């Protein structure tokens, strides 16, 4: 057994592709070694900007020799059958064995040396490596069959134990030499094998393992910040990206002109992160500090002074650009910006963004005036009017991901109230499940109105999500609406809200068939919400059968009430009373089903058995109790009413024969069971509950 080292040296591999490439390399190697029958121990992969590395431990010396016997045609079979068999086995007639008139092919497969298997494996992996994007290069690219790689591939180190595994692909021959850091150690390095690879490269300023580089960046960047009395803003994405861009990472702290701090913090952090890949720092008050941490790929001869100075100047130019936009934006009142929204098409069938804003404002106002949200209606309407105004600012033009945030800052700087500024800033939230859900009243109103309007408007023009296609992210909008409603306990009839939104939209289009359209679209939207609610609740761990049990009662479009009922039901069915009652319910329902019992008016013929009487009494008490409880939204109370039926129904089943030979008794008892079933069903459709 020996350890195997593979290094594929190329020009710089995009940082974002390295993790997947490591996984693909490990997976493909393991798969193909297994297919070839060559045993290996642990397989590790690493990457630096210029290399992909695989280390396989304890590779077997050779594959096992194998012997295979294949039964062929009878020796008397026609020649066509024999020819077919010879083609299949690759043998000649005289190589077959005749055993009692049946021909056999005996194939001896000698074991293959590890080196040979590895060479084939590596060659095939390189030839069809699944890079997301690959290219051709150099003189060989004249040929259509030339090798493709993510960037030009320069060399292959392949050493098994201490021996080079000979591999040649498109003119590149494997060997034992590689190079170290591009600038610290430009010459060739000879590798002995797995045992000295990592150490030799480290001596040449290359840290082979990305995890170690990530750790180093994390720790040194934090240290650099701490030494300046600051705290680094953690950003794991940046750590990984910088580790993919450096073989010898050296985090360096630099400072920028504090005057730039006038620019919104998010803009500065985003510029530093996306354009420059810098970490940001905060001071002891958690305010953004005029400092950055860049990660160099060199231990500079001057300690990094020139690098820091260069980066500072690049950042200054970027921040100057950002400040220019910010100052321009500050000069224009959001109200004036909002007027320009009529020049931006929201969707070809749904008019401009200005049209959308008008709808949001009306719907948000309705949410307040109808008592769903307790807020100042004028304030909410103003927030809605200004909510999208930042879309035409220079700042959002440069940084589209800061929509809302910029509007919030501008609103505050231009003297709008804090509530309005917050509503503008946060009205895109929540951006799907798991995102922070706004709790400020005005924000909720604008956010919910925005999302419900989008859903209703797109459904109104037949732009519904289908299968995997949801180009306008309506599913996310529905989930976000549901989160807003539930988390804030908003009591609203979804039907009314949807019809309201559709009516507002119809008012804009002034179409003659709008009523007809409304009647058609509203149920579609409500069904869409119901589906999303199930998905959302399932993801939150609520049993889907319980949701179905409450849903199938129909007519419930108050999500808060609906979920309270589901929750009470879930608690109940998980108690002993609940589980037992469910069993009894199923038994009753089965009997009724088997008898195809539709019910009759007969109830009291003859004398009741005591257990029958007890069940009737229990139902007499429980039915009004349950319906009162439901009426007052005391769903736990409704469940308690059901629980009171447990003893009587169990006794009933234990002592009373439903299918009594006497037809009136049978009829009476079936009717009683039906009454029991229906009483339970008024609380929730227990037939939908599993278990």
């Amino acid at each position, binding site marked *: 057994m020996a350890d195997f080292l593979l290094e594929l040296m190329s020009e710089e591999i995009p940082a974002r592709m390295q993790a997947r490439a490591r996984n693909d390399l490990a997976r493909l190697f393991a798969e193909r070694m297994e297919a070839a029958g060559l045993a290996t121990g642990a397989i590790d992969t690493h990457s630096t900007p210029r290399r992909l590395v695989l280390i396989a431990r304890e590779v077997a010396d050779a594959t096992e020799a194998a012997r295979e016997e294949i039964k062929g045609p009878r020796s008397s079979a026609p020649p066509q059958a024999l020819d077919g068999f010879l083609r299949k086995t690759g043998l000649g007639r005289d190589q077959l064995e005749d055993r009692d008139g049946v021909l056999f092919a005996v194939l001896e497969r000698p074991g293959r040396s590890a080196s040979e298997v590895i060479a084939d494996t590596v060659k095939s992996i390189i030839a069809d490596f699944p890079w997301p*994007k690959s290219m051709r*290069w150099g003189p060989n690219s004249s040929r259509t069959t030339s090798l493709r790689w993510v*960037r030009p591939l*320069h060399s292959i180190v392949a050493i098994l134990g201490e021996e080079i595994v000979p591999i040649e692909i498109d003119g590149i021959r494997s060997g034992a030499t590689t190079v170290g850091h591009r600038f610290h150690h430009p010459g060739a390095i000879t590798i002995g094998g797995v045992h000295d690879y990592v150490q030799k490269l480290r001596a040449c300023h290359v840290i082979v393992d990305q995890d170690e580089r990530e750790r180093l960046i994390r720790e040194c960047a934090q240290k650099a910040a701490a030494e300046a009395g600051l705290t680094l803003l953690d950003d794991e994405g940046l750590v990984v990206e910088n580790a993919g861009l*450096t073989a010898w990472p050296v985090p360096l702290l630099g400072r920028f002109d504090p005057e730039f701090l006038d620019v919104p913090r998010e803009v500065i952090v985003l510029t530093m992160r996306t354009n420059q890949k810098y970490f940001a720092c905060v001071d002891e008050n958690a305010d953004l500090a005029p400092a950055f941490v860049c990660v160099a790929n060199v231990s500079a*001869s001057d300690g990094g002074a020139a*690098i820091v100075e*260069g*980066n500072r100047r690049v*950042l200054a130019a970027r921040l100057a650009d950002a400040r220019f936009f910010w100052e321009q934006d500050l000069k224009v009142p959001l109200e004036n910006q909002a007027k320009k929204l009529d020049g931006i098409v929201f969707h070809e069938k749904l008019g401009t963004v200005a049209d959308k804003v008008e709808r949001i404002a009306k719907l948000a106002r309705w949410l307040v005036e109808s008592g769903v949200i307790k807020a100042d209606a004028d304030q909410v309407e103003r927030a809605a009017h200004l909510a999208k105004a930042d879309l035409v600012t220079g700042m959002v033009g440069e940084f589209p991901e800061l929509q809302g945030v910029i509007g919030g800052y501008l609103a505050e700087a231009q003297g709008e109230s804090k509530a309005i500024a917050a509503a503008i800033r946060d009205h895109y939230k929540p951006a799907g499940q798991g995102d922070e859900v706004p709790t400020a009243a005005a924000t909720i109103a604008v956010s919910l109105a925005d999302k419900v309007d989008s859903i209703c408007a797109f459904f109104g023009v037949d732009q519904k999500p289908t299968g995997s296609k949801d180009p306008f992210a309506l599913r996310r909008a529905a989930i976000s609406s549901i989160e807003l409603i539930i988390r804030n306990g908003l009591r609203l009839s979804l039907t009314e809200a949807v019809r309201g939104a559709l009516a507002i939209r119809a008012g804009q289009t002034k179409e003659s068939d709008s009523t007809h359209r409304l009647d058609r679209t509203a149920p579609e939207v409500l069904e869409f919400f119901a589906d999303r609610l199930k998905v959302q609740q399932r993801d939150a761990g609520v049993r889907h059968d319980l949701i179905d049990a409450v849903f199938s009662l129909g007519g419930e479009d108050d999500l808060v009430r609906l979920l309270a009922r589901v929750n009470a039901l879930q608690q109940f069915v998980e108690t002993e009373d609940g589980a037992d009652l469910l069993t009894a319910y199923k038994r009753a329902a089965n009997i009724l089903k088997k008898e195809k019992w539709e019910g009759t008016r007969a109830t009291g013929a003859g004398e009741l058995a005591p257990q029958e009487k007890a069940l009737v009494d229990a139902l007499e008490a429980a039915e009004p109790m349950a319906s009162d409880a439901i009426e007052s939204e005391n769903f736990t109370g409704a469940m308690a009413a059901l629980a009171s039926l447990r003893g009587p129904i169990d006794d009933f089943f234990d002592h009373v024969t439903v299918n009594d030979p006497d037809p009136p008794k049978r009829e009476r008892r079936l009717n009683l069971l039906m009454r029991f079933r229906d009483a339970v069903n008024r609380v929730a459709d227990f037939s939908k509950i599993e278990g």
Partner: protein
Amino acid sequence: MSLSFQDLILTLHRYWGEQGCVILQPYDMEMGAGTFHPATVLRALGPDAWKAAYVQPCRRPTDGRYGENPNRLGHYYQYQVVLKPSPENLQDLYLGSLIEIGIDPLKHDIRFVEDDWESPTLGAWGLGWEVWCDGMEVTQFTYFQQVGGFECRPVTGELTYGLERLAMYIQGVDNVFDLRFNNEGVTYGDVFLEKEVEMSTYNFEVADTDTLFDLFRKSAAECERCLEARLPIPAYEQAIKASHVFNTLQARGVISVAERQAYIGRVRDLAKAACGAWIDVKGYAA
């Protein structure tokens, strides 16, 4: 003392000349990038080896800022190097040029950061990087894969240096107009500030859009006439002309988002047809 703007160009000329490049002069037409020069686009097609380096003035009407922005210009220079087929040591050759102009890679942080290049108007794309020096993009480094819609066989390596940025970096200047153009006290601003102001005014405010629309149509028609006459180079020149007219129309703000794609598509069709004609006339077709 660090290199002046003109010495930077002369140093690069000498360096790439020594690497066997033909040192060309700028193409005498308005264009948005050094890549448009026929010495890059047309020479990237077909099997023949080719090495060239040149400075190309680039006109980007929408980037003009009336000379008020320290970093943005409507007219600036690119230094363009093309090597076909791309040599094995292209990265090393490139880094050699940085050392030549005074950038010590053990004192500065040189990085190759992924940046795939695509020119929708040329029907061209390639893979490569933007090269960073201390966080600043100083060069676009590309291995052409397709030009004019045709596969590059073999692949051309293209280096595009942003000369003003590089010079600002080397000279430690924060405003492009403060660059030392030579060592006799002449600044970049002395040479170009007035031009930036006037050209911005022209491109944004004065250029007659009817004339431009007319020019666009006429260039396109002329391109097609040249194609019929099997004259790929004049045809390509007309495509470049149409492209620049389109850029100016964009600066005048008279092309809507929807129309924009159509115009780009029109220029691409012309450029592709010229490339196809070039392959045909040169007898490169398989």
